[in-house]
């Protein structure tokens, strides 16, 4: 397939950046979207041009590094996938494809399509953990009986890979789906209850502090999330936070 790409190019954080048009020819419909970009980059390097910078790592949908706002949607037109799992057969020969970085004040562009998602790391550091006794006689987690429903819900929430597609898709650039998944995966388990109140308060405060927007329940995040994280988690975060804030001194 032959394609026309409109790609955001930006030298560095401070540079202005613009959409540039490229042509790629002979792309296999079986290749992944990132492989298609590899082909383009090979071309650019051969011509002595600067290749397009984009994030990627595992290329199998588990690390959350690949981002990209493709033709107006996070991770492109397919559902429940990351960009490395997007295949070129989703497009037609001759298509024009817009490729932009995640857009959010809290995710500044570093270069081209690469954004700085360390705001998520700082939110995690604010409370996304459990304190464990590491003195040598650590208790086996399985020793605590946990209702199957809770375990399943906690596990579902824990599948969040921190990709940021929720923020990118939300009209408010809100990070609520991410934060709610990270709060839920611990809040649902007895090990996570000890620090539950502090966690909810600190993570939400950090989220606001990073400059993410306010959730208005549009539900765009849930639809675009590659891991199908449910809005149910956001309702849980609202409950966790509100009850913690009422009790907080």
């Amino acid at each position: 397939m032959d394609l026309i790409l409109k790609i955001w190019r930006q030298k560095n954080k401070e540079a202005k950046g613009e959409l540039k048009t490229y042509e790629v020819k002979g792309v296999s419909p079986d290749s992944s979207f990132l492989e298609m970009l590899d082909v383009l980059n090979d071309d650019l390097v051969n011509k002595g041009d600067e290749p397009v910078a984009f994030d990627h790592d595992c290329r199998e949908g588990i690390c959350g590094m690949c981002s990209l706002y493709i033709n107006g949607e996070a991770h492109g037109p397919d559902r429940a996938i990351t960009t490395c799992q997007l295949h070129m057969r989703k497009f037609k020969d001759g298509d024009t494809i817009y490729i932009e970085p995640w857009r959010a004040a809290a995710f500044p562009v570093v270069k081209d399509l690469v954004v700085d998602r360390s705001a998520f790391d700082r939110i995690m550091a604010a409370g996304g953990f459990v304190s464990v006794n590491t003195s040598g006689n650590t208790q086996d987690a399985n020793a605590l009986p946990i209702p199957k429903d809770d375990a399943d819900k906690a596990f579902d929430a824990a599948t969040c890979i921190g990709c940021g597609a929720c923020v990118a898709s939300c009209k408010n650039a809100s990070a609520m789906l991410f934060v709610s998944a990270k709060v839920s995966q611990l809040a649902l388990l007895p090990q996570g209850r000890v620090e539950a109140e502090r966690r909810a308060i600190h993570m939400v405060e950090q989220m606001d502090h990073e400059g993410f927007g306010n959730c208005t329940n549009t539900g765009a995040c849930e639809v675009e999330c590659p891991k199908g994280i449910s809005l149910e988690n956001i309702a849980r975060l609202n409950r966790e936070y509100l009850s913690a804030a009422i009790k907080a001194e």
Partner: protein
Amino acid sequence: MSTHEGMTSIVRKFLMALSGFFLLIFLLQHCAINFLSVISPDMFNSVSHFMGTNPLIQFAMQPILAFGVFFHIIMGVILNKMNDAARPIKYAMNKPAENSSWMSRNMVITGIMILLFLGLHFYDFWIPELNVKYIQGDMSGLLDPTFAESGLRYHEELVHKFHNPIRTSIYILAFVFLSLHLLHGFQSAFQSAGFRHSKYTPMIKKLGNLYGIIVPAGFVFIAIYHFING
């Protein structure tokens, strides 16, 4: 309920939901009372007179309502401003319709349209009401305050307003925006308050759709009824 950083985003959305709930209840009773004007002008008159002169409603409920409306608007504007700032550079190509409803994305637009309508609505009913009651000092509610047999004035005033086709059309258009606002707002308020359950949430969504259609449709019906029969 604020923490050391002041009001957080979750508190803001919770308060938005709380004032929303309050307005939902207000709207329902407003629609029910207006409906009386179709069923029985006498009943409408006496209920209106009660609502307009009862001190509890006038001096306790009305200020709370005014505060609720005011708060909902101001908070909506603040949220919209903050959310705009959270994405300073927009996408060159964006397809929001792929993942969310028009109603959910345009609450500020439907909200502003309702606010503009409120201006007209106050000009039509509230300001004349204040004028008669508190400036002219006529608390009788009579068509002709010097003549006790003249009957109560409320139904007459209401019907009179809907003689005008332009006003009636503006009212109907406003109710369409109200419906769009409610279709997202109703179920969104429950989610913001943390109320979500696999058993009840589908019911709440259905109820929200019913409310968002039936209540505005009720207002539209009343407006058209008086336009035709007035």
